[in-house]
């Protein structure tokens, strides 16, 4: 499913309109431990996390993720947004908590590493 369709289905607010949302998303990962994200997040996937600082973008870039969804209405600073745009990573925010976001992603067919 395309990223922008996912955003629409889940009612996500897009934080980086400058990055196009036509990436095809098949896999996802949820974690607030960045080393864990590095170790296990699937290439080209989406990350759901509570962390909103700059290192999230570095980690998402190294793990070659397509998008990050910030849960619990947590919003990153401007410099984080700028970095994400520079790296071509789409950022979204949702008022829902991690569990609910992951559940709805799963229902849309976005699976984890082992499904």
């Amino acid at each position: 499913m395309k990223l922008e369709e996912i955003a629409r289905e889940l009612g996500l607010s897009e934080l980086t309109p400058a990055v196009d949302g036509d990436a095809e998303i098949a896999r996802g990962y949820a974690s607030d431990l960045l080393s864990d994200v590095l170790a296990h997040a699937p290439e080209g996937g989406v990350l759901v996390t509570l962390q909103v600082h700059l290192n999230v973008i570095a980690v998402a870039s190294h793990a070659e993720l397509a998008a990050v969804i910030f849960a619990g209405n947590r919003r990153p600073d401007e410099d984080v947004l700028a970095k994400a745009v520079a790296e071509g990573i789409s950022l979204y925010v949702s008022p829902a908590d991690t569990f609910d976001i992951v559940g709805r992603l799963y229902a849309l067919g976005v699976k984890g590493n082992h499904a």
Partner: protein
Amino acid sequence: MERLDYDIRSGDFNGAGAASRDLKQHLKRIGAESDAVRRAMIAAYEAEMNVVIHADGGRLEATVSDGQLDVDVVDRGPGIPDIPRAMHEGFSTASSEARALGFGAGMGLPNIERNADRIRVTSTVGEGTRVSFSVMLRPEAADHGARPSSLGTVPELCRDCRHCLVACPTAAVRVRDARPSVMDHVCIDCTCCIAACAPGALTLLDAPGALIGDGGVLAVPPALLAGFGEHPAGTVLDELRGIGFSAVVSVHPYEDALRRDVLDRAATGDGPAPVISPVCPAVVNLIELKFPALVKHLAPLASPWEALQRDLGERDATFAVSCPSQRTALLSQQPTAQRRTVTVRLVREALLPHLAARRPAPGDGAPRPQAAGADDLLVVSGVSHVLAVLEEIEDGRLGGVTAVEPYICDGGCFGSPLLAEDAFVAAWRWAASAGDARDGGQSLERSRPFRARPGIRLDADMAVAIRKLARLDAETAALPGKDCGVCGAPTCAALAEDIVMERATQALCPYVKPEEGTAS
């Protein structure tokens, strides 16, 4: 060769990642394969974060040459008192600030280990830590030059006796400042330095808590099953099952299957004779490094451990390995399920108390039958004998032999220096022990061909290599030829090579007078 250099500042969480990001651009420009870039970046970023989180600053140096990325991250900081523990997932000493940002979960070093093809961590408490790792940038590069080695070093145990220098069949070991180091581009992952090192500074390490019977399969070699005095293999198997594994399997059916396959290939007479069995990965490494002409003699099959691992499929398993080369071979297969390797030493020590409480009971069943055609097989073990036989094959002097089964360790895998029982006693006990299930093993075709490995060439560029060769001759002539080992290299020729390759200087030789530049 390209060299990149970065400063890393302590506590600079926002700036962290700059070095690894820049490195990534370089790697992409030189056409590194994308999976390799990803792995290199994850390892570099974790190493960078370690400095940011733990140290008072440091440097990241990266060099790219010959399809290989080498990264050296050196910091000034508290050092790591217990490296094996730090390598263990979940162990962390990070600050609460780092933890709040989602770091310090104790995954940094394990993450580097998982993504790099090779890692070495050395540390001095109160001074700092050096993390060195390498990533092969092209899949085929893993078959050239340096390759991952499982040999471990515990430098602080070194007594500076230098027995390892002489023991190494490929002159890969150096001892300088009472610290052994191994040059991976010529290391063949064998046990020679381990056997020579009484204090255990060169060894095969176990991660703490590595032997966890969490319901998976435990795979063991016959040498372990036959290594408990008069306790028959069946008793040892019983006790092993009792420490928490769902099943215990022996690798010997796969050894037998490999032997049958090699004998079959020898019997057809296709291909160059004799056929050499790839049973011992260290001998395979030796052939690829020093006997390139014999690579085509190797039966294109995987080692018994690899065949067993393939058969275990998706089942979680722990492998009790007898040497570094078995561990490397298992890890290089990139298994799909959870896999651990432990040393046979660790399993043996865990089992000793259980068996001490049991009275040896006689085994039942007939002695092990020999594989059909085994009379035609030349089994050779021990590094000096293996070298002699390989030279005979290379020179065409080994007439009448159709199949060779070479093992680096004296007495084959029964002679692993990680085991306590004498190789010949253990082999005898195994041969005399009851015949439990010995079928079901099968040989496995290799997915990648064996390849000569140009680890000993002086330079990738032949013109440069020729110039270096001339310098090598001159440097060798300037040294006394005593091969005394005082300089930390095994021979004068090895020191000369170190000088030419800029790993050492002539000043290390106690016999060369500085003003003359030649030996007195």
